[in-house]
């Protein structure tokens, strides 16, 4: 795993953050890492388990298995059988959920602090001895297909995003959607799932984060008792980033019944550990955070070319995508807004931001950082997220210092590098009438 961000500036840990984050750390002999954070303010606890596996660990034929598997983790283990996990948790004053991304699979529980031991029992049971039955898998597969229908097949941004992934990436697993291709979801077998479990759900591939009304010492003793006997697993194979460099613009068109055209533009960014990742955070805030940000003010209010504009830039282990989405008015020309977007991006590369914009972005990054830490779930998640992407949760303490040191020169250089025309991928949705799509379906 990568080490912490840029050494050059070497900022000090932020004192305000440090007082909030008095984290107790431990590693069990089986490799399970544990991070505990006491916060007695309210009698509730959040527990997160981060497994270092996501769609980037998949291969064609079983795309979507990380996510389907995430569902299977709720379907019964040795001690707590089918339906028991949620039932026991809820009836003890807790709730649970999970999500899968390209890089990680994350399970979380919020619960009354009374229920701590029960939750550790439930969580360690499924890490130790998950049981997968054909019947459960068959039923859960149908649930995931419905999820795909609602998120992608019947959702315009889902459709565009899926198409864009295949343009931005040619070789890297980021190419396919986290939820997987429909035929692959159909194809995943029980054996595939069991192998996945053995490989990626071993304690040495997981980190446990607990924040809330706990006594760290007693909690660690409980964790040793419940998780200590889970055997270590093999070391998962590293993921190869075989993505070739892009040699020119890539474009795709989607024809679909819709009221308006829309546009999604993607660029390949740096990996999370690269210093540029944080420079792009600053650029993202300056371009898209708030009504007064450049793109909202320029494209929506002044030029009135878009109804809304969104910039998505999220850190990933391997180089992630910087994605712009523009929602347009009925009858508008997507080429116009596309040109206007590129003009804004070129301006950043040429002139950078104003000093005030730069300071504003930094102020907002800092305020959002504190907001993120306002809840137990936010704190536990932040620790896990930074550890998974940057290699250590401590990076979180240094982040405000890194942001504060970012200069306009860095902004210009990053914009020039990452928004270069030959590196972009563009998906345009062009509306077709309902009837036309009907006949297309009929012919197919």
């Amino acid at each position, binding site marked *: 795993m990568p080490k912490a961000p840029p050494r050059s500036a070497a900022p000090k840990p932020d004192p305000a953050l440090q007082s909030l984050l008095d984290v107790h750390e431990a590693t069990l002999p089986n490799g399970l890492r544990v991070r505990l954070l006491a916060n007695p303010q309210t009698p509730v606890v959040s527990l997160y388990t981060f497994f270092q596996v996501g769609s980037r660990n998949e291969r064609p034929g079983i795309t979507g298995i990380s996510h389907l598997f995430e569902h299977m983790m709720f379907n019964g283990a040795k001690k707590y059988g089918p339906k028991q996990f949620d039932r026991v948790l809820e009836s003890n*004053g807790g709730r649970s959920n999970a999500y899968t991304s390209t890089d990680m699979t994350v399970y979380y529980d919020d619960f009354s602090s009374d229920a701590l031991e029960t939750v550790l029992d439930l969580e360690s049971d499924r890490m130790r001895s998950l049981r997968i039955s054909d019947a459960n898998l068959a039923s859960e597969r149908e649930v995931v297909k419905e999820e795909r229908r609602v998120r992608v097949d019947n959702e315009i941004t889902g459709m565009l995003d899926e198409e864009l992934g295949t343009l931005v990436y040619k070789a890297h697993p980021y190419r396919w959607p986290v939820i997987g291709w429909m035929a692959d979801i159909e194809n995943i077998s029980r054996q595939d799932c069991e192998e996945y479990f053995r490989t990626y759900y071993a304690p040495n591939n997981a980190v446990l984060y607990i924040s809330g009304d706990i006594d760290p010492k007693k909690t660690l003793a409980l964790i040793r008792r419940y998780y200590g006997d889970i055997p270590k697993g093999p070391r998962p194979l590293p993921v190869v980033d075989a993505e070739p460099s892009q040699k020119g613009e890539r474009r795709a068109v989607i024809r679909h019944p819709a009221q308006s055209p829309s546009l999604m533009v993607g660029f390949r960014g740096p990996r999370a550990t690269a210093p540029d990742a944080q420079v792009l955070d600053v650029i993202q805030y300056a371009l898209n955070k708030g009504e007064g940000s450049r793109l909202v003010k320029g494209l929506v209010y002044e030029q009135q070319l878009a109804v809304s504009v969104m910039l998505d830039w999220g850190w990933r282990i391997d180089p992630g995508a910087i994605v712009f989405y523009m929602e347009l008015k009925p009858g508008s020309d997507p080429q116009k807004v596309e040109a206007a977007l590129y003009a804004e991006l070129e301006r950043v590369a040429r002139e950078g931001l104003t000093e005030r914009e730069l300071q504003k972005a930094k102020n907002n990054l800092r305020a959002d950082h504190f907001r993120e830490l306002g809840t137990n779930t936010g704190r536990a998640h932040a620790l896990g997220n930074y550890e998974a992407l940057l290699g250590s949760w401590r990076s979180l303490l240094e982040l405000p210092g890194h942001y504060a040191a970012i200069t306009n020169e860095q902004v210009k250089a990053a914009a020039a590098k990452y928004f270069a025309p030959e590196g972009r991928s563009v998906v345009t949705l062009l509306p077709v009438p309902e009837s036309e799509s009907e006949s297309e379906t009929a012919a197919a």
Partner: protein
Amino acid sequence: MASRPRAAPKKAAASRSRAAAPKKSAASRPLKLPEVSESTTSSGLQVIAAERGPLPLVSMRLVLRAGSATDPKDKAGLADFTVRLLRRGTARMSADEIDEAVEFVGASLATGVSEDLMSLYVTTPAEHFPAMLAVLGQLVSEPAFPEKEVELARERSLAQFANDLDDPSTVADRAFTRALWGDHPYGHDVGGSASHVRTFTREDVARFHRERIGPKGALLVVVGAVKPEVVAAEAEKAFAPWVRTEQLEPVRAPSVEVVAQAGRILLVDKPDQTQSQVRIGGPGYRIGHPDYFAATAMNISLGGGFTSRLVNAIRVERGLSYGVGSYFDAMQAGGAFAISTFTKTASTREIIDVALAEVAKVRKGGTTPRELLAAQTYLAGLYPLRTETNDSVASVLADIRMHGLGEDWVELFRDRLRAVTPKQVKLAAAKYLFPQPPAIVVLGKASEVQKQLKGLGPITVVPVSEYE
């Protein structure tokens, strides 16, 4: 990112109680809101402040009795349209200057309208609290509503209404709102519709502001790292000029006890769909109703939690949907009990039948004592989350005042919940779980769905464009 969640019930309701609760349990530890200080500005605005750390942040919300139910009859959406325009220029600041003032320091400003209330929300780093409160004061007391901003907002709204037609879940919700409440002031989406918004003028907006946006009946709540004395003093500075001589007396919407399209099926045709959105609803109760606790506990077992009967029957047993939930939507003049879900086109009828059968079982037999205890423990265990952040504390303080829930609402919540008996659950189930046929809205591919729905009730098919 993909996740596993249910279709989140629209409005949750949570908390816990004791009974045979374990020893010195967290659930029985008293839950208290931070101490509250009250003041009133010279212009008559009520202010409540609660100091709360440790983060150097402050949350505030200004809540007014000017929800979508106060929209003029032929101007549906005007409250929402107006509140969004408040930040687009005042007598002293342009829209850009307001954005810059708020956004430069890392504060945020948002607005929202529900059926009953209009709200403006600000969160800010604590050191900028006075400046942000001053901006908030300006927005409500002296907005300029520049003509070009009104026009731009109208154009954007119209484009948004058109684009919303491509979002199956949004259109289904709109159709459902109309099916439930018909001509009642709750019967339109809070954002209105294209045909009404198209007629909005600057004078409409300015009149709405004169008549509805004033200190009478309004409440400012401030929670976070700021002293109550500072809140009172700064509120006086910021809101002293907010004197509204033409403000109308805030009124409640007339109470409503039935749903408009009971027993009828509304099929919204969207031919490109591979999945149907389904909404089913009947009458519920108004906010603050004594049935709240029994009904909430019952609903957790029926369709509120992840282990509920609906989730089990629809998602776990049959794999029919990724999400299903039931909820009570309680407003000041009435409320609904509703189910929301979706499934592939071919199983549209099946999902409706399964949902209605589960509802009927609980209506006739209630839930088991064991289910009740589990629901009570679940809600009570998680209730403290309602007091975890400045925002959530501000939210519950505002609800207590605006809806008259009682000052001891938070402290007693878990005890009241624990006191619910199986018999009360049975009564609530019989009363609210569709004793009369519900209104059903389906959005999907009508050519395949219509024949499936035969026998459920009279069917009306409408195109999605009906809901622009």
